[in-house]
């Protein structure tokens, strides 16, 4: 059945201009590669029958897609039972216990002493669950597009888990800030990230105050290490005063415009950066070490009027920042910058203007409704063009998750798969730079990384359950082509795999070798 026909038969969904050669099954496979983390065995066929555009509409309406299996798996993750304050407390205890052990080790003069029951290790394991959870969700959720968008926004609004308090602030950032808004409204998401303790800490805005401002006494500095005034020595007081912020910090202001909204060519200058930083003075965290939430300190706020991109912002306390975020969210440069990034994710590394323009128009029309913007991309001819299909190389995360899905591997609760993703160069939540991880082939394809992918492929092949051991090698390779590659295996790949397994008489050995070569070979790197 050809794709035109599939659209005609689909109950809903706007028309688009697909490539004439794309069959319904090919279209389904393409959609699964981009809107989802690849096809599970048989999935391309069932979506082709269901109607590709209809399936896309269902994915856009994620709230109405039942997901009981994921809900059951999520209950295994202890980290979801803890809130920010719990995690902060556990981290504090872990640090305290480690210090205690170090003191004891120093006192006994034995630095090599065994570490004993390590609460810090337990905390790290708990934190590591977040990575495993991301893989489980991406692999088994029925709301695939939402998971793809969570990954997109997590990188767009990157927070590095290794920076100080973000070790315990990040889980709630993902759960409460990003996930509920992944298919919502951009402005809403932007404001939520700006007010999130994780972002306020990561890009230092929590410590940005108007020069010369001072907290009302008695001041409970959010960055103090010890209760104010209690047994404080002179030196400690000086130290505390040194730690007290005394001026603006430009870090968040700059990245907000460069990365989150306008883009580096968005037309702002250094004075705009300074003025944005002034607007956000006082946006802080109430006792970050306790995992507390957003707080606005009026005493720290720069009370003057500010001008950003020629627009005047009258001194208006906390609301000034909200007004600025709304202003930035609705700039044309922002629409273009974020739309182009979305198209790079969904269409091609160098996306054509057509899909970007369609996304921008949809953004303007809907005032930043993410689902409307995505729908415009998925119905753009560029999305379905021959140039776009199988043109993108999978990121390490996409590669591992798509291999897990294709092979029917059930992601377990060990860190094994997360470690695999990390070894391929994309340890989740561990990108220190505010850019997040890159989307394009040039960042991920190099000789060392490819060898690592081949190793990962062989490891995953051992657990493959979607391909039975078949005596007939030709049939085995056919099955692999259909189940793992959606029928896109090249004749070269087919002949090399057949040649490699020809002398393997044990069907089990042949199966693992053939699956490993298919997953590690060039065809499976593409999406």
């Amino acid at each position: 059945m050809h794709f035109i026909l599939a659209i005609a038969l689909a109950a809903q969904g706007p028309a688009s201009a697909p490539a004439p050669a794309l069959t319904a099954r090919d279209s389904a496979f393409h959609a699964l590669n981009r809107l989802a983390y690849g096809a599970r065995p048989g999935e391309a066929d069932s979506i082709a029958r269901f109607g590709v555009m209809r399936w896309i509409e269902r994915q856009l309406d994620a709230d109405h897609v039942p997901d009981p299996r994921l809900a059951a798996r999520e209950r295994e993750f202890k980290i979801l039972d803890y809130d920010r304050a719990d995690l902060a407390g556990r981290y504090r205890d872990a640090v305290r216990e480690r210090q205690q052990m170090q003191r004891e080790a120093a006192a006994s003069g034995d630095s090599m002493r065994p570490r004993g029951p390590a609460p810090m290790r337990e905390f790290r394991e708990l934190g590591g669950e977040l990575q495993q959870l991301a893989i489980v969700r991406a692999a088994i959720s029925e709301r695939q597009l939402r998971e793809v968008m969570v990954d997109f926004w997590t990188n767009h609004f990157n927070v590095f888990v290794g920076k100080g308090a973000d070790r315990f602030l990040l889980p709630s950032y993902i759960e409460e800030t990003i996930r509920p808004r992944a298919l919502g409204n951009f402005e809403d998401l932007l404001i939520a990230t700006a007010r999130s303790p994780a972002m306020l800490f990561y890009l230092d805005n929590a410590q940005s105050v108007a020069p010369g401002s001072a907290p009302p006494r008695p001041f409970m500095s959010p960055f103090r290490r010890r209760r104010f005034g209690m047994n404080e020595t002179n030196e400690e007081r000086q130290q505390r005063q040194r730690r007290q912020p005394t001026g603006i910090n430009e870090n968040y202001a700059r990245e907000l415009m460069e990365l989150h909204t306008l883009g580096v060519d968005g037309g702002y200058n250094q004075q705009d950066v300074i003025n944005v930083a002034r607007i956000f003075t006082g946006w802080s965290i109430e006792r970050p070490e306790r995992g507390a939430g957003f707080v606005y300190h009026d005493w720290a706020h720069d009370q003057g009027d500010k001008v950003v991109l020629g627009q005047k912002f009258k001194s208006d306390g906390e609301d000034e920042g909200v007004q600025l975020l709304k202003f930035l969210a609705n700039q044309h440069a922002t629409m273009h910058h974020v739309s182009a990034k979305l198209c790079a994710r969904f269409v091609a590394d160098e996306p054509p203007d057509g899909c970007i323009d369609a996304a921008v128009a949809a953004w303007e029309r809907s005032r930043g409704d993410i689902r409307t913007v995505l729908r415009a991309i998925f119905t753009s001819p560029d999305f379905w063009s021959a140039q776009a299909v199988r043109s993108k190389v999978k990121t390490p995360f996409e590669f591992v998750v798509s291999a897990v899905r294709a092979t029917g591997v059930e992601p377990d609760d060990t860190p094994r798969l997360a470690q695999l993703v990390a070894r391929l160069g994309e340890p989740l939540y561990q990108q220190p730079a505010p850019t997040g991880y890159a989307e394009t082939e040039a960042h991920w394809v190099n000789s060392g990384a490819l060898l690592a992918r081949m190793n990962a492929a062989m490891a995953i092949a051992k657990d493959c359950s979607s391909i039975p051991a078949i005596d007939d090698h030709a049939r085995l390779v056919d099955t692999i082509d259909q189940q793992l590659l959606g029928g896109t295996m090249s004749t070269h790949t087919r002949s090399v795999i057949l040649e490699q397994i020809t002398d393997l008489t044990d069907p089990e050995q042949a199966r693992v070798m053939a699956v490993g070569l298919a997953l590690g070979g060039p065809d499976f790197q593409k999406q």
Partner: protein
Amino acid sequence: MTISRRVFVKSGGLALVSLGLDPLFLARAAFASGRPTGRPSDRPTLVCLFQRGAVDGLNMIVPHGEAAYYQERPRIAVPAKDVVDLDGHFGLHPSLAPLKELWDNKSLAAVHAIGSPDGTRSHFDAQDYMESGTPGVKSTGDGWMNRYCQHDQEHANTPFRAVAFGPQLPRILAGSAPSLAIDDLQAFGLRVPQEAARDRLTRAFEELYDGAGTGLLASSSREGFEAVQMLKRADPTQYRPTAGVDYPPGRLGKTLLQIAQLIKADVGLEIAFADCSGWDTHVNQGSSEGQLSARLRELGLALAAFNHDLGDRMRNIVVLTMSEFGRTIRENGNSGTDHGHATAMLALGGPVNGGRVLGRWPGLGVEQRFEGRDVAVTTDFRDLFGEILARHQGAADLGSVFPGYTPDPARFLGAIRG
């Protein structure tokens, strides 16, 4: 006649099957056929460390002779008594003390007030410009180190000519000339315990990617398999550090150790590149002690260990540090520093004309600053990079390495001995 390595590796594999010959012996012979005269150990090598995040040049190479330095940094300036004095005006941060002996034997130079003619304070943009080598031009597709490899092909017959340590190939080495990303030398290649099975799998994947056409997947995999072959032969991990040399724990020490191993293995390493991060000190930067001090200590110990480990071989090696920009002269409200303009770089090794702080010092007075707040750039980074390529690596054509820039030896700082 030069035998193409590609053809050779394949026919070597066939030879193994049909004649029982050791293909590695043949590979060696093929490698030798295209090798330039001169022993590999005489090849010039450049090791670049990118301090990502923008190192505070003023606290790395401290202008302790400037009153303004102390006025602007009441909380984070390095006190003059702690600075390791170099020339009465500048000194090393105390954590870099292990490098002082290199200064004294004139194999360490510092370059101050160096940076980009572009005024961006974006990490992303500034790193991009420093790696593309085309400040202000974003459309440049490749990196300047790769362009150097494209245009000076004398040493192009080894996959180890240009190696970046890390899981991804950095922008600076992106481009059409083959270059290699190695995350860990010890784990490079396919992981199969039995050698015969490993060789078989390696050949299978090699065949698979051989049919992947032209793109990046095909060329990258080809480079990877060539490297695997050579590594197997040269086994660089057999080289232990020279007695008494201790690399500091951590990623940087391990990377420099592995670079030293590759150099000792004579696999033709000409350009090595590695990242070292943690320099974006917006908050509580510290002065003699603290956050920046800890990063500099690791850097100083790692560079000193590398220098001692390679000993006499340092006569052909230049190590260069670089960073996308410097930081504000005035400390910020959080005892840190924000994004600035010019920074400082270090060059060390036998060919370095050391014992000097190079570059014109613009001063820290308000009117001497860039945009009234940052150290002004008096040396375009391309003049230092270009000088090292021309006088150390022997680059013939700097114009193609730095398009849009006319390299003029008159602007060279004299960082490399004539």
